[in-house]
């Protein structure tokens, strides 16, 4: 008898697990994702307290110490742990401040495209066929132009700056959000609970934002997480091409462009900003993959 009871209620899953707890249990299965999340959080903290932990200001020049090597190589010293760049600025301080800029770009692009994406996506399904066709065509158009080429066009029109980088990258990644919201909202709209809500007299606004939207959120959250890393990469590429944040801003891509002329003489100037970009993007992608697997096992990245 006792055996039967044990079979009926599996001991591993208790009924009163909160959704957050269930999510965390699924997320921590993936060691790579946990490591990624840890590094992301570390970079976020670094970005927030950049002013406190950076040894010098990002644009502070030391005329007596131009292109000093990192401390572990010949000619390096503890004064500048990662050396200095062509204008005698401390690399470590610039990299730390660069984290702030890159994460800000990533977060801003994610936030803006999330909000506009939700609004346009819901407009597609609720405002009738004309709106749907126009928005969908527009998104198809954006998708047809290669991402960086479109970003370059936008920056060419608006002029290169940090703000315009965010605008350009947001435009490039907007279609992903719109299409995702539109597709999942369409699916949800045909379900019984939506019909029930309609019959109960729920108004169109409430129907969209409180009935339908919450049920479209999990793929959106995954897209948003992975979108941050794409935005950081794209912004760095623009910076590298001289079309993003302008010098002397300590943006990683711009730093790489500055360092290009020293590729023979001072290789670390080229190496360090790239390592910073790579570590950030890899950890966001690892954490994002884990998020995807934990939120919806069926959605595992192809």
């Amino acid at each position, binding site marked *: 008898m006792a055996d039967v009871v044990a079979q009926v209620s599996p001991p591993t899953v208790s009924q009163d697990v909160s959704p957050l707890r269930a999510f965390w249990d699924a997320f921590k299965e993936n060691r*790579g994702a946990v490591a990624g999340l840890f590094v992301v959080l570390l970079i976020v903290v670094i970005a927030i307290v950049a002013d406190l932990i950076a040894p010098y200001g990002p644009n502070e020049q030391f005329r007596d110490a131009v292109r000093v090597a990192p401390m572990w190589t010949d000619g390096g010293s503890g004064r500048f742990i990662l050396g200095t760049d062509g204008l005698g600025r401390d690399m470590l301080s610039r990299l730390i401040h660069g984290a702030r800029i890159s994460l800000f770009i990533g977060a801003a692009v994610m936030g803006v495209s999330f909000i506009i994406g939700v609004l346009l996506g819901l407009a597609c399904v609720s405002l009738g066929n004309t709106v749907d066709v126009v928005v969908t*065509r*527009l998104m*198809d*158009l954006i*998708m*047809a*132009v*290669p*991402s*960086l*080429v*479109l970003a*370059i*066009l*936008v920056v*060419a*029109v608006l*002029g290169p700056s940090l703000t315009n980088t965010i605008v350009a990258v947001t435009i490039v990644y907007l279609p992903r959000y719109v299409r995702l919201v539109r597709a999942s909202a369409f699916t949800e709209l045909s379900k019984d609970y939506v019909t029930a809500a309609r019959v109960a007299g729920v108004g169109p606004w409430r129907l969209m934002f409180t009935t339908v939207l919450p049920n479209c959120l999990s793929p959106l959250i995954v897209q948003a997480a992975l979108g941050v*890393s794409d935005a950081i*990469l794209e912004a*760095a*590429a623009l910076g*590298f*091409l001289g*079309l993003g944040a302008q010098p002397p801003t300590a943006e990683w*891509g711009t730093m*790489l462009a500055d360092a*290009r002329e020293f*590729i*023979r003489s001072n*290789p670390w100037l*080229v*190496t360090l*900003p*790239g390592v910073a*970009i*790579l570590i950030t*993007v*890899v950890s*966001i*992608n*690892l954490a994002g*993959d884990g998020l995807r697997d934990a939120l919806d096992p069926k959605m*595992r*990245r*192809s």
Partner: protein
Amino acid sequence: MLRFLLRRLALTIPTFIALMFVTFVAIRMVPGDPVEVRVGERGISAERLEMFRHELGLDQPVWKQFADYAWQLAHGDFGSSIATNQKVLTEFAALFPATIELSVAGMLFAVLLGIPAGTIAAARRGSIYDQTLMGLSVTGYSMPIFWWGLLLIMFVAERWGLTPVSGRIDLIKYYFEPVTGFMVIDAWLSGQAGAVKDALHHLVLPAIVLGTIPLAVIARMTRSAMLEVLGEDYVRTARAKGLPIWRVIGVHALRNALIPVVTIIGLQVGALMAGAVLTETIFSWPGVGKWLIESIARRDYPALQGGVMLISSVVIGVNLLVDLTYGFINPRIRHG
């Protein structure tokens, strides 16, 4: 099939018109006067200025300018570069083979490594090989390729001297007129000893850089497609028949797993063009990507406008082709 083809073709027309409109509006919003770019900063008489503006059609009403622009495009005229006075289409056509050559080489690199890597990872699921390959795949997918290119130049080209740093061929040693625009083929046609080898040497690093992200995507896609297929009945049947495992995986399973992979490869074309802009800039590769960046620096709007139109048209065209092929292979898409 014909109806599917026509419907799919009709869908691209509004995209083209919108593309035309957006590039037209965008270029006119650009700060800076194109006439000034042409005549330099010393200034000219008001009469001459008016003449230039007339020549460029800038004295017409905006709607007329757009109509003219659309009319010209319909006749294959993408305007003339302000900087060189050449037809944009002519410049593009001269440079595009270099970009195709680079893209094909990059894609070859990605496919030839990506499919075996994904297959091995799937066959040895959960093993150290699988974990290593997928770790590398995330890294490749996250790679800032402009930095990756500089890193390879720094080590492979500069420090170890294994490959040239930039360009398509050693211009001091070899000179021949372009015939096809594809350096490897032209080198072969020229018959000069060592020319082909030299051209290939120049191609290695840019191809690796451009192929890195597609490689990561293809490896990952192959792995998941293989994992799905390996659970199918016919794979079990093949195993039960006593076929060797490499044959089951390499022939029976892989052939079916490749269908989604081929689609992904086709859809990488947009990403390749975006990557080409960066790769060509780093390696001084004289293709359309580098040309586009230079056009911005020169404020050569007609070139920028035409270049964006042409590159996007290529991407739309290839995606259409992929769709049609897929519809041809898979009737479920066609009637969907």
